[in-house]
């Protein structure tokens, strides 16, 4: 049995981005002692990268806006695969979540009458995005961070200890959600989290009856991505390993506009606000090609001519919006097609131009960080010339299947998920600006219900206790990369240790090339073969040096998560034989009516496998199965959303085998 430091908390929040911090604030305000654990320094989370804004139907700029319109836009953008109840809660509660930020010190850009300004964005009928220039995510993180500090100051006044009721464990990583020892291995309740501290390499256990996953996305499994190193699918994998299934993982959003040149910055995001504020897309022939790509469902909402589109910026009531502002999946596919047809820019993108649309001074004021980013990183002055842009992996719509109201996972008592790691809210495609509001709405809900659940136990013996066998297994698994040169028990010797950086690069290339923006069945089958090869090799991922702040070690541990999640994406993508939102099949190009009724659930065939020896480096994953679930008849009737309820374990599961 491993001797470790153990601490007792009520709620443990994994991740300190928008959802994690909002959950922590809520849990603490509900009276729960709350620990936040994050991989980076406090305040560095990926949320800072969000640029354009936060969608909320406050109606400050166009009073025609209300939650119903926001709800409809969200459902339409998601191609009606959204969990309708989540989309409803999101649209209803987003304005309150934004206004609340102001009471914590946030400073949004203003309208002339002093209210919060709102800007246009793809797929949103009205100007809806509260923003601060093009650094809205930074404002959100800083505001939440400072609210946490404010709560800590309260505790300092009351208890003489800043961390009495709310503590941030920064630069720490959770490798396993721990459960109690149950009669059935996958039936137990959450009991805590197994963690290591980057600085020292020390292991520790946070015991808590409730764990909120708020770990963000999976983009680091792809080569061209706008995501930071933290986006290794940790929460997705932690949920799977704890026995909670993932929903609709095939839906990965490729943002239409990432930088394409120079190579070292390929993938870095170019905010959608460039288009929201008037930027246009042109191909190498100078043509505004988006007019050729308006799908029938959007025909009535989008301009038919450049003149009409241009007039819309000044007079939105009598004109329709330009097609550059179609939802992201449409624009990304259009760019991909233009480049493929040989009408791309010199470095394989298309041109995004604001220089001919706005005065230089306006561009610098409205898009300061874009101006700065292109100037510094690409020697391009966006006030004088066009940018070259192309699709970049940006967001995963799929995620942990949760209850719409409480953010609780459906199968593991005490486990919650909010933000990008949770699935369902955005259906098959997310609208820009709906992510920041998602973080706040469901971060708050997760914190609220996790706190209620956790404090219901009191402080006494009723609390679930982590199974010591799981703790020991987690410690052995985390140490495995230091002894990678030794053969696995029962395995032949003769393989040298693998370099985790090389494995990571191969994974990124595989996902990018074979499960990318346009998908084909044979390629995805090849991807699955490659992934299972990588999984075997990842067991031998070895590291040099010691446990103190060792990035090679950290990556070796993150690989397990990336490989698991990538396999779910590939498997679900192969299974869904249609094109919808963020999932485009060249071999099944149409959106199929019957698929609208289907959600795909991925779960580990053997979630209880925690054996230290074999599971190290890569989990002892025997099979990943997809539950292809049919909707139940009893789902709440709402015209468009009816089919979207994930039934609780109804319908015949279709298991798809996969060799370990």
């Amino acid at each position, binding site marked *: 049995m491993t001797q470790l430091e153990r601490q007792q908390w009520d709620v443990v929040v994994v991740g300190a981005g928008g959802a994690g911090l909002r959950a922590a604030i809520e849990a603490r305000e509900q009276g729960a002692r709350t620990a936040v654990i994050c991989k*980076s320094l406090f305040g560095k989370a990926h949320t800072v*990268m969000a640029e354009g804004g936060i969608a909320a139907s406050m109606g400050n700029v166009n009073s025609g806006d209300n939650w119903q319109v926001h709800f409809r836009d969200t459902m339409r953008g998601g191609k009606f695969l959204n969990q309708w109840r989540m989309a409803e809660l999101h649209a209803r509660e987003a304005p*309150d979540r934004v206004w609340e930020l102001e009471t*914590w010190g946030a400073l949004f850009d203003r309208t002339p009458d002093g209210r919060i300004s709102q800007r246009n964005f793809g797929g949103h009928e009205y100007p809806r995005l509260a923003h601060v220039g093009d*650094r809205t995510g930074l404002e959100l993180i800083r505001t939440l961070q400072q609210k946490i500090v404010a709560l800590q100051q309260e505790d300092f006044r009351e208890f003489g200890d800043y961390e009495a009721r709310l503590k941030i464990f920064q630069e720490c990583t959770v490798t396993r959600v721990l459960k109690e020892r149950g009669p059935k291995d996958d039936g137990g309740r959450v009991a805590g989290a197994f963690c290591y501290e980057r*600085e020292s390499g020390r292991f520790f256990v946070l015991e808590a009856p409730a764990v909120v996953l708020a770990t963000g996305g999976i983009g680091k499994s792809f080569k061209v991505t706008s995501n*930071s190193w933290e986006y290794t699918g940790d929460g997705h994998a932690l949920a799977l390993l704890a026995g909670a299934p993932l929903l609709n993982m095939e839906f990965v959003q490729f943002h239409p506009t990432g930088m394409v040149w120079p190579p*070292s910055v390929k993938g870095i995001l170019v905010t959608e606000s460039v288009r929201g504020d008037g930027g246009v897309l042109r191909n190498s022939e100078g043509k505004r090609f988006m007019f050729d790509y308006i799908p029938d469902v959007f025909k009535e909402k989008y301009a038919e001519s450049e003149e009409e589109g241009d007039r819309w910026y000044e007079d939105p009531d009598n004109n329709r919006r330009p097609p550059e502002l179609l939802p992201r999946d449409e624009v990304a596919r259009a760019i991909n097609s233009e480049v493929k047809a040989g009408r791309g820019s010199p470095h394989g993108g298309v041109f995004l131009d604001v220089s001919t649309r706005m005065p230089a001074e306006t561009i610098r004021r409205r898009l300061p960080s874009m101006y700065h980013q292109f100037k510094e990183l690409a020697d391009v002055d966006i006030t004088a010339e066009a940018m070259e842009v192309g699709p970049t992996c940006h967001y995963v719509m799929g995620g942990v299947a949760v209850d719409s109201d409480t953010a609780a996972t459906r199968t593991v008592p005490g486990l919650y998920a909010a933000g990008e790691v949770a699935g369902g809210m955005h259906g098959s495609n997310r609208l820009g600006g709906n992510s920041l509001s998602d973080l706040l709405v469901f971060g708050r809900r997760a914190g609220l219900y996790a706190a209620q659940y956790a404090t219901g136990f009191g402080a006494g013996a009723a609390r679930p206790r982590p199974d010591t066998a799981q703790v020991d297994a987690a410690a052995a698994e985390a140490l495995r990369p230091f002894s990678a040169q030794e053969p696995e028990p029962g395995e032949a010797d003769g393989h040298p240790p693998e370099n985790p950086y090389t494995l990571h690069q191969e994974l990124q290339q595989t996902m990018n090339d074979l499960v990318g923006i346009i998908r084909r069945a044979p390629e995805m089958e090849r991807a699955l073969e490659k992934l299972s090869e990588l999984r075997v090799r990842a067991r031998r991922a070895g590291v040099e040096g010691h446990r*103190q702040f060792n990035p090679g070690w950290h990556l070796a541990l993150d690989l397990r998560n990336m490989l698991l999640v990538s396999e779910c994406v590939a498997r679900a993508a192969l299974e869904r034989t249609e094109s919808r939102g963020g999932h485009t099949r060249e071999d099944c190009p149409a959106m199929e009516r019957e698929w609208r009724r289907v959600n795909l659930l991925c779960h580990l065939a053997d979630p209880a496998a925690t054996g230290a020896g074999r599971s190290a480096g890569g989990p002892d994953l025997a099979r990943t199965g997809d539950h292809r679930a049919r909707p139940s008849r009893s789902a709440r009737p709402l015209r468009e959303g009816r089919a979207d309820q994930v039934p609780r374990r109804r319908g015949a599961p279709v298991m798809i085998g996969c060799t370990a």
Partner: protein
Amino acid sequence: MSGYTAAFEVWRGDADGGQLEDFEVEVNEGEVVLDIIHRLQATRVPDLAVRWNCKAGKCGSCSAEINGRPRLMCMTRMSVFSREETVTVTPLRAFPVVRDLVTDVSFNYAKAREVPAFVPPPGVAAGDYRMQQIDVERPQEFRKCIECFLCQNTCHVVRDHEENKESFAGPRFLMRIAELDMHPLDAAAGAGVDRRKTAQDEHGLGYCNITKCCTEVCPENIQITDNALIPLKERAADRKYDPLVRLGNKIFRRPE
């Protein structure tokens, strides 16, 4: 421009000491210093410790000293150096080393906690906040801060005088006080917090002698000295030396 081989010196070590290690490493078009550090990790020294997140100048994690100058590694193009030049990368000097290029920046988080938070105006409901753009623009400039702590690292008040850390918040957090002081709706005064006075008395504003080193290294080009520190000093001084305020303080001083 095609690829070439550059000479790098990277500091490696921990709290007990360390040294510069030499590397010859490939450089390609458009790359930044952080790309080179990543190449070293992937091919030569997998355990080379470095902090980074976004690689786009937005998170402020990859702060280091490059040829002695505090900079973000992700925003330092290799093209600013000549091909013959040796590029030296060392950890931030004002903070204790953890390992290699990673330093212990907890000083900054401790100081952040000492600045009293925003106080919402009493009686104004959420949703009823009204502010003019022109009034929010001043504090908004300071909220562009990405907390890279380069200003904290370069400020000679702490860089050369470890003993000042106790009583000096540093440019980042003096700027935070200025930001709150300029917030159109901050109600700290009504709650008994005099931001200007505490800046002077508790956060060491007086140590700053406006050499503008902080402004020079700010990757967000925030005019820390001109727009935050000097106005804060003026406001603090106005109060301190205003004859009426002084008289009032003498007459109405409450017994401690």
